[in-house]
């Protein structure tokens, strides 16, 4: 199938002759691709009613996911017209009366690949395509799933502090407790907000005071921010009795 592109417009307030090019659809070749312009979506967010914007954004994001999924899986036989063909886009352009409109598909005299797609996005929309970075999940979730692993089956999980010390009035959750070996393991990321880290360190003070006969270990990921590194150094000085272990080291040792 020959390569083509079609500009995706948002038709704003009907009192204005305004069409905002919010995206670029490229089909054929190794495609299809749908690129959504972040800057123009930010502009829409500022000018539209919140509910209208959320609805439009939901629509566009869902469409993009569908196109990306189609490009990766391509479920149909190549004998038939592909789902996102020039003819389909032409029909859509003629019949769509809603707020999202498509321009007439324009032929590209080249094989469409990812590089050509990026070039078109830069040329037509004036934007550089940002590489997709995989988002790291927060440490709290990683730590939670790590604690529920089988290797900690001999440990008690999520005990309250007054289970170990009935006189304690504080309601603090203890992540991993081994009552036989008198071991207590807590997890904390020093890259959280300063207030949160200080609150957790205050809790650590209470724990070390109330449960003085338990060995205390604090498992933490390597801090990325300058403030995180500073807070870790300060915590090590404040709590000499606590064992500060890197999460990666702890994982290796516990294998």
């Amino acid at each position, binding site marked *: 199938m020959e390569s083509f592109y079609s500009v995706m417009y948002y038709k*704003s*307030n*009907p*009192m*204005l*002759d305004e069409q905002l090019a919010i995206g670029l659809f490229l089909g054929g070749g190794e495609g299809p691709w749908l690129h959504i312009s972040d800057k123009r979506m930010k502009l829409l967010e500022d000018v*539209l*009613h919140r*509910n*209208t914007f*959320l*609805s*439009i954004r*939901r*629509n566009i994001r*869902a*469409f993009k*996911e*569908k196109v990306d999924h189609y490009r990766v899986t391509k479920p149909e036989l190549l004998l038939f017209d592909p789902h996102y063909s020039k003819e389909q886009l032409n029909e*859509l352009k003629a*019949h*769509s*009366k*809603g*707020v*999202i409109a498509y321009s007439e598909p324009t032929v590209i005299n080249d094989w469409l690949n990812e590089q050509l797609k990026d070039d078109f996005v830069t040329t037509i929309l004036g934007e550089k395509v940002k590489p997709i970075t995989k988002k790291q999940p927060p440490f709290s979730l990683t730590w939670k799933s790590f604690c529920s692993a089988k290797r900690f089956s001999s440990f008690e999980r999520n005990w309250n502090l007054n289970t170990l010390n009935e006189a304690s009035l504080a309601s603090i959750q203890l992540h991993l407790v081994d009552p036989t070996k008198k071991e207590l393991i807590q997890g904390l990321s020093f890259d959280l907000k300063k207030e949160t880290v200080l609150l957790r360190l205050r809790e650590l003070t209470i724990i070390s005071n109330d449960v003085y006969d338990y060995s205390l270990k604090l498992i933490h990921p390597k801090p990325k921010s300058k403030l995180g590194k500073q807070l870790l150094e300060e915590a090590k000085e404040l709590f000499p009795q606590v064992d500060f272990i890197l999460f990666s080291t702890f994982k290796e040792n516990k294998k």
Partner: protein
Amino acid sequence: MEELRPLTISRSIKDAPTVLLTESKAPFLLYIPLNEHIIIQDALLRLMCEHFKIKRFRTGSFTLKSKKYYCVEEIQGVVDFSPWEEHLWLNKRRFNQFLQPSDFFKMMLIELFFPIFGGTLRKSITPGVKNQAMLVPTSPGQSHAIRFEPVTLSKLQLNHPALKRFFLFCKEDVREAIVGFNLLNHDKFMMDLKYQLSFYPNWRNVYWDELKKCNDSGFLTYTTNVVWDYFHRLGTK
């Protein structure tokens, strides 16, 4: 039909349709020059939507340069309900963004049981906290008298896998919609429609001759069976 009082009227540099802004800041599109057929069909459709509890865009009339226009409310962010928008209901989580999704099926039932508007009516998804179904009261056959022309499921795109998936998600609501529609589609409602036509003596006989075909027992039985057959063929989740 409501006579609109404009606050202002837009002037398009691209010769696009004119938009009128009322005193309550509601925009209306000057859609088509008004004639008696449009007035009668608008009245019939308004009565049907009120009776079967379907939301529709507001309409009105306005005289511009000694020409009377049929105006339809313009709502921002409206998208057509069609198989192309399948990505809005790819899974149940996305489908749950719709408020009263069975209203789309009620619109299909109106077109199946009252196939007099000369083509398919536009169904729209209007934005909000949740997506809502609204009927756009414009049809291809508005400029001339109604004609009884039964529509097929394919013409309404009901057989498209995307729409089947949509209605499968709300299968129980679709069942209730069919039962409710059949209960409400009674002789008294036909009399109400006939009474509405009596306000237009020039065309009432022509319109009633076509409209009463919708109440023909053979047509009603056939259409009811087609609808129930479609419902049963929707499958299970």
